[in-house]
């Protein structure tokens, strides 16, 4: 529906047309200065958000971010042959770092920098997820554009998308570098400082082997007998968070589509007022100028919706965060499950030992049956078996002890990080909502401005 709206609307980009008519040159100038102003507002709001977030991050413990200034400064297109020798175009991002102490001393050293692709960020994140299974690892910006309202480009190469991705990647690095646990990771440090050979270094850690087995296990369904209450609650919460943020993102997309249509149709007033003014004497000027304001009104929606994308990005971050929380809970469940399996195994082995030692078969077992049918085995065989069992039981007890410790440690660390996450989430989302409200206010002010201008023109009719 908005398709034909676009066709009908006046192409207000045609500056020459506007400049040609009397008294509208001022309007043209005013309009472009309004556009510049709104860009500034966009930048101001996104800067404010970052400043608040950075402030929050820096106050947390000792972390990399305190020692090093990190940013993802630029994005560039590259072409090259990929692993299977096919020519491809991709985007690289410039990661810049500067030592904090030098800055604090008032020097202004040039930053160290290196280029990274999105896939390298992904590799870093996967590595961190496997290495710290009980930590809610900050998410990356989306791989593909989702929840796109229809006029927005879903193309990964689109400059607006690339720009938003750059911001998202910087966000990711800042969050990781300010995390009390993650920021100490060596691979992270190398990611930021070692351009070549970093990937090989990461692979050499052998994390992928662990990754595969854990991932496979996670996708399997398993039942835990005595689940950790708080972590289960958290899992349910994360499901809710995921569902709410995705619902919100979908609804927002639909609203954006409709809002776009409403604004753009007003552009038609611009054209018809202009045509009408041609047949009027006294009313002509007023109508003509009013028409230009209607054009400006129609054009203003582009900036408004562009800015809202930043809000959508903040929601998307927490949509992904919900998934990360869920993963932590599930990983604990897996540990718990393995522990329960190990305990179960230990119990059955102990039972077997008892049976062997006393000859009494408490429960039905194939051994018991064969004993009855074919007679008991020779004492030497029985002893050998008993010894083996003792070994296995000793091992089993070790395993259970280890796994119990692991499980408890995991639960403790996970809970600590989840508490930290909850706090961060509340602050971030509250900030995001405030920003959204500011955007709405800005939209209202623009609307009032345009209609007041139009009213001035009408009064002069």
């Amino acid at each position: 529906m908005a398709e034909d709206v676009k066709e009908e609307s006046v192409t207000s980009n045609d500056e020459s047309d506007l400049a040609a008519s009397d008294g509208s040159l001022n309007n043209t100038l005013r309009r472009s200065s309004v556009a510049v102003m709104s860009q500034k507002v966009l930048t101001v709001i996104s800067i404010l958000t970052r400043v608040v977030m950075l402030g929050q991050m820096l106050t947390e413990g000792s972390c990399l971010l305190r020692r090093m200034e990190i940013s993802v400064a630029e994005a560039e297109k590259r072409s090259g042959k990929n692993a299977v020798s096919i020519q491809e175009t991709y985007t690289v991002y410039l990661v810049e770092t500067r030592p904090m102490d030098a800055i604090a001393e008032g020097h202004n050293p040039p930053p160290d920098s290196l280029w990274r692709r999105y896939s390298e960020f992904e590799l870093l994140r996967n590595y961190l997820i496997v290495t710290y299974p009980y930590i809610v690892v900050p998410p990356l910006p989306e791989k593909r554009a989702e929840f796109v309202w229809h006029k927005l480009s879903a193309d990964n190469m689109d400059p607006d998308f690339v720009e938003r991705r750059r911001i998202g990647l910087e966000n990711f690095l800042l969050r990781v570098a300010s995390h009390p646990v993650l920021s100490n990771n060596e691979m992270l440090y190398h990611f930021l400082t070692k351009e070549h050979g970093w990937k090989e270094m990461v692979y050499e850690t052998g994390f992928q082997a662990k990754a595969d087995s854990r991932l496979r296990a996670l996708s399997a369904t398993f039942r835990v007998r005595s689940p950790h209450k708080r972590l289960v609650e958290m899992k349910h919460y994360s499901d809710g968070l995921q569902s709410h943020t995705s619902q919100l993102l979908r609804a927002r997309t639909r609203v954006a589509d409709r809002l776009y249509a409403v604004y753009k149709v007003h552009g038609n007033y611009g054209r018809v007022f202009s045509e009408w003014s041609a047949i009027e004497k006294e009313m002509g000027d007023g109508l003509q100028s009013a028409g230009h304001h209607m054009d400006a009104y129609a054009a203003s929606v582009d900036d408004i919706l562009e800015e809202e994308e930043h809000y959508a990005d903040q929601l998307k971050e927490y949509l992904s965060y919900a998934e990360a929380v869920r993963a932590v809970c599930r990983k604990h469940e897996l540990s718990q499950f393995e522990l329960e399996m190990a305990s179960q195994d230990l119990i059955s082995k102990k039972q077997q030992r008892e049976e062997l030692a006393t000859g009494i078969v408490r429960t039905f077992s194939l051994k018991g049956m064969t004993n009855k049918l074919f007679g008991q085995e020779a004492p030497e065989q029985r002893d050998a078996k008993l010894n083996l069992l003792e070994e296995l039981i000793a091992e089993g007890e070790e395993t259970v002890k280890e796994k119990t410790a692991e499980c408890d440690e995991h639960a403790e660390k996970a809970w600590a990080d989840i508490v930290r996450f909850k706090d961060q989430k509340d602050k971030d989302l509250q900030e995001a909502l405030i920003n959204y409200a500011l955007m709405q206010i800005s939209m209202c002010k623009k609307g009032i401005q345009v209609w007041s201008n139009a009213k001035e023109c009408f009064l002069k009719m």
Partner: protein
Amino acid sequence: MSVGAPRGLASSGQKLITEILHPLSAAEEPLSPGPDVTISAEKDKEPGLTNGTPVEISSPASASVLLSRLQLDGDPEADAHDPFGSGEPRDLFVTVDDPKKHVSTMETYITYRVSTKTTRIEFDLPEYSVRRRYQDFDWLRIKLEDSQPTHLVPPLPEKFVMKGVVDRFSEEFVGTRMKALDKFLKRVADHPVLSFNPHLNAFLTAKDLNKRQGLALLTKVGESVKNVAGGYKLRARPVEFCAMGEYLDTFSQKLGTIDRIAQRILREQSEYLTELREYGTVYSTWAGSEEQLQRPLEGVAGCVTTSCGALEDLSDNMSQDFLPVLREYILYIESMKNVLRKRDQVQAEYEGRLEAAVLRKQEDRTPIPVEVEKCQDKVECFNADLKADWERWQRNKRQDFKQLLTGMADKNISYYEKSQAAWESLITLLQEKQTEDKTSETN
């Protein structure tokens, strides 16, 4: 007209239809005072109109209160350009209000109160109050057209409505129609010639309007016969009337386009509203599963709801006040084009007769008959009347559209203001909360 036991509208549930404010009322948002806007002492209860006629909502004002209000009113611009007036103050004021439903065995219909205040000697009393129904207005209009064919008679709102499609007794429909009828009467009362028409006098004063419906029907037929008969071909239409015709054609076209655009906007706004409502509920639902974020999320949901309400008001206003006035003008233009056609006919008749008479004179020296001279007079009168009416119509059109478009701008501004206020109070709330949280953290 006999007024049966008046009953309030049973169908409309909400507010009493008698409480409907006049569309051009400045009751809610005070317009910046211009020469065409009435400033009245009791701003919220007595809204005014461009031509200074006060709209009565509750009790009819006494003549003295009316006069005092008149002193504040004034349309100096219009008076200055008025070729007919010599700067005289207006002396005939009419109002249409107070719709009431009448149910009889035969039919159900609505009547409106028509109030008149005047100092003219043509009227026996200074004040009148009668009840009229749409049929009566229609009768008046036909009579005016017939008796003053050389003048532009303002249009009435559409007569026929599809019974299944439109609820003829809904508050909205009745309100819109009433405003249009009020406007019609005011325009007639304003007209220097039409306002002295005896039919108008009868309409405004007679207890029972003796309409003789049959005659009205005949008259309508007669009119169309008048248009068709003659069959004279027009030689040369004077330039000014050509220009008028062209202007009307283009203007009508543009108004049609504006109407379509406005309707399109209404449709899009309605869809936007639907999505916006849904959007608000998602925030509410989410709030239910949060602790710290509950208040902020509820707050956002609340602001969205407020914006929805404001948008609804805007849309309602556009469909009830903006569009009907636009359509009325389109009808006005149609009737004006009719008058132009009549003028052409009269001129053609004259030219035809003249030509015939001249030929006969050449043949047998018969003098030009008196009828031909009378025709010439007719043409000249028609042209003069039409030109004068055209000027006044152009002036009124300018005022009407200035008001209409300014009103549209105001309603849009009001919508954004309401929304902005809601979001701003939310920001205050959230920022207070943030400082609260920070202080509780440090403690």
